[in-house]
């Protein structure tokens, strides 16, 4: 589908800050508020904007238990449906946060979140590896998130500019 420049502008602004008010969004994009509301509705209806979410640094929350693993999965594609069939079998598990088809040494990149390493390990050995098409899995646990979706978690860069300058 082809979007107008203004619609793309709206998507870009919302992608950075989905909580911005429609009034401010309209001003930034140089649109009337009615146009902006209509464009947002259209983008939502078309599922261009799929969901509004927040980036949360769970590591800051005491008592939060959770691990994330990235799993490289090699699979045998099926005649007629290629990788889609096996991808679907994998992404239906609620533990699975993301599934991407990859170029290179393995086929699917699967991101799993669980409460503990054991839980993830159990999932991989009992659910993922046992799927017919899955040939092998390599599990990498994430130790620390430095930057996620373009956002650096520990923002050390405060404004260093002098307060008034010509």
């Amino acid at each position, binding site marked *: 589908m082809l979007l107008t420049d203004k619609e793309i502008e709206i998507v870009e602004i919302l992608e950075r800050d989905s909580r911005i008010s429609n009034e401010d969004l309209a001003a930034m994009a140089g649109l009337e508020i009615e146009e902006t509301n209509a464009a947002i509705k259209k983008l939502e209806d078309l599922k261009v904007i799929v969901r509004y979410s927040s980036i949360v640094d769970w590591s800051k929350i005491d008592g939060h238990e959770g691990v994330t693993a990235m799993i490289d999965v090699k699979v045998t594609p099926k005649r007629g449906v290629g990788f889609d069939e096996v991808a679907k079998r994998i992404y239906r598990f609620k533990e699975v946060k993301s599934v991407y088809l990859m170029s290179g040494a393995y086929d699917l990149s699967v991101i799993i979140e669980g409460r503990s390493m054991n839980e993830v390990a159990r999932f991989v050995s009992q659910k993922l590896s046992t799927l017919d098409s899955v040939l092998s899995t390599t599990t990498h646990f994430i130790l620390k998130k430095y930057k996620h979706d373009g956002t650096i978690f520990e923002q050390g860069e405060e*404004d260093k500019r002098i307060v008034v300058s*010509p």
Partner: protein
Amino acid sequence: MKQTKSYLSKTVEQLKPSGIRRFFDLASSMEGVVSLGVGEPDFVTPWTVREAAILSLEEGFTSYTANAGLLELRQGISSYLENSFQAVYAPESEIVVTVGASQAIDLALRAILDPGDEVLVIEPCFVSYSPLVTLAGGTPIPVQTKKENDFKIDPADLEKEISKRTKAILLCSPNNPTGTMLNKQELEQVGRLAEKHDLLVISDEIYAELVYDETYTSMAAIPGMRERTILISGFSKGFAMTGWRLGYVCAPEDIAASILKIHQYAMMCAPTMAQHAALEALKTGTLDVIDMRKSYRRRRNYLINSFNELGLDCHNPGGAFYAFPSIQSTGLSSEEFAEKLLLEEKVAVVPGSVFGESGEGFIRCSYASSLEQLQEAVKRIKHFLDNNR
């Protein structure tokens, strides 16, 4: 020491101190100030550029470069200017790399002025233009622009000030503090006057990368003007590299040679690590510039819209990162407004009067700040206006 006479230069003593200084001192002494008074990008220099400078240090590039700057950098500047703005300059003989665009302006003026020569300075403008003309031995002749023309140059006003002693016109587009950009036709009008009266144009194009509506035209790309133009630019604004102090000046060979003569005696060369950083900026920094430009445009739209809603009449600036709203509806002078706003609401802006007579009645507000900061500033300014109108 018993002092019987003043040792200070009369010329320097008579220079008016910059009006910005006072606001800087005042704002610096306060806590919790939201500043719209900053004349530089809020972005840090792109990491690719910083990383290249670090690498140049690791590899030991710590000695002088050629007076005119690294040839490779001049070649890069040459292709950049030609590709981006159709301004053609020979890297070997027509480009000098300087310590910021500020030094480039200083050199340009010193290279062309003899005592008594006049320079038409289009106001409101950057605070250093007139003092630099004076320090170079010339006489600055201010030419005012007006709000009703969106601070564009009225050729008739310009021509009125041309005398036998006029040597050059000094202008900046997009402009600091008004943000006004001159389009091709408007530059041609200035060009025709320069040709008619045999004048040079010193064209400060430091904000050329930061334009939001129309495509940018360089004075050097106007037919017939390359030979009369001294083009000033640099990396500070577009590439977010203010602290590196790296600019350049491009001019026809004879003028560039004179500029280089002063530069080699007075400065030797621009800092080497900054030159390596600039080289990288030209190679890979342009992608960052695109993102920064988008971000400025959105914030400009937000701030201009907010000022107009608050009843602070503001034209839509085509470039740079300044809004220049009128505060005349408050009945305050621009200095009074800026000082009261700072003391009562802790918002720092720069009074328009420091940029020249025609800046009176306006304030300069930089939108090189995060949206959150702009929103907070607008909230405080609204509160201020409610109390003062």
